């Protein structure tokens, strides 16, 4: 009954939505406002004035860099939120005490394949991060791949060994790496060129601009990977 009612209501909701979206500028047309207003400048001048051949990268790191600054802050918020929700409660509290499940040993085949592939996956992730300004991809995509790699490897080699490599303080710094890189570059832009997150525009400084783009991509990659791995561990530990 409740389901039928909801379905009926949603159909009623869908009708005005469909009516309205049907009147949007036609899909795929090159004369609609999104194509004639702001984006032509990005497409024509992006690679020259913003510094990356991939115009999407120009938009996310340069023209609308502050959005991405906010975006990496959102992931950092997610990390702080997950830790604030999951940390620091005794394991045996509550009716469903965390029955310690016997960890089934990882199959040797899987272990072998992971060890074999890990260097190549890492290489691919670094390629994705460093090439974000000329091809699809970039910091966050590469970071997700590294994060996945870290997760898989720690499942194989055991987490305590992996954690021993990076002390707690350094881990916390790595987790904040993405927004911190943004803030550093933003302030450098403010000091050198007068605006927060301003990139050099003169041709002489093109090398500096590329360096900054790559620095940001690397910051996002490292920070994203650290956060994804930490969230996974914390959720798995609970």
């Amino acid at each position, binding site marked *: 009954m409740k389901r039928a009612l909801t379905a009926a209501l949603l159909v009623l909701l*869908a009708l005005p939505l469909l009516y309205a979206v049907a009147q949007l500028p*036609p899909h795929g047309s090159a004369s609609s406002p*999104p194509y004639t207003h702001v984006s032509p400048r990005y*497409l024509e001048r992006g690679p020259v004035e913003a510094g990356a051949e991939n115009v999407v990268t120009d938009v996310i790191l340069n023209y609308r860099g502050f*959005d991405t600054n906010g*975006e990496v802050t959102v992931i950092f918020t*997610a990390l702080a*939120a997950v830790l604030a929700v999951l940390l620091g409660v005794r394991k045996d509290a509550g009716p469903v005490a965390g029955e310690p499940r016997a960890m089934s040993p990882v199959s040797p085949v899987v272990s072998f394949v992971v060890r074999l592939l890990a260097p190549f996956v890492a290489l691919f992730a670094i390629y994705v991060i460093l090439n974000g300004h000329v091809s699809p991809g970039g910091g966050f995509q590469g970071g997700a791949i590294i994060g996945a790699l870290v997760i898989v490897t720690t499942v194989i080699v055991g987490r305590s060994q992996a954690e021993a490599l990076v002390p707690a303080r350094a881990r916390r710094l790595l987790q904040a790496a993405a927004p911190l890189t943004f803030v550093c570059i933003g302030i450098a832009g403010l000091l050198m060129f007068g605006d927060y997150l301003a990139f050099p525009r003169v041709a002489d400084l093109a090398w500096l601009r590329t360096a900054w783009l790559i620095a940001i991509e690397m910051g996002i990659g490292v920070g994203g990977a650290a956060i994804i791995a930490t969230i996974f561990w914390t959720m798995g530990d609970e």
Partner: protein
Amino acid sequence: MLGLLWTNIDYAASVGLFCIGLYCVITKNNLIKKFIGLNIMESAIFAFVVALGVVDGGDAPIMGAGARPPFTNPIPQALILTGIVVAVSTTALALSLIIRIYRQCGTIEADELREME
């Protein structure tokens, strides 16, 4: 109107997916299932916004050698990159909450939780 809708079939599909997701969020009782519904809604909106940036016969806006116009609009793509990250952040928090709720209450069905309150 139907003709226009046919041209804008991508938008119409997004509206459909949005409603499917909303249906799941409202009617499903299991918290994880509710969240799968929310993820469907999210990707419906993302599909809608990316579709705003599509141009007939457009290529990816990457200005390497041999690239020729028309290019798809980079702005909606940039927005949705942010959107996807926001969505995964929300998912991580929601699932952590679900794990905690299960640990403390022994169930993740909304009606049983309501009785417990």
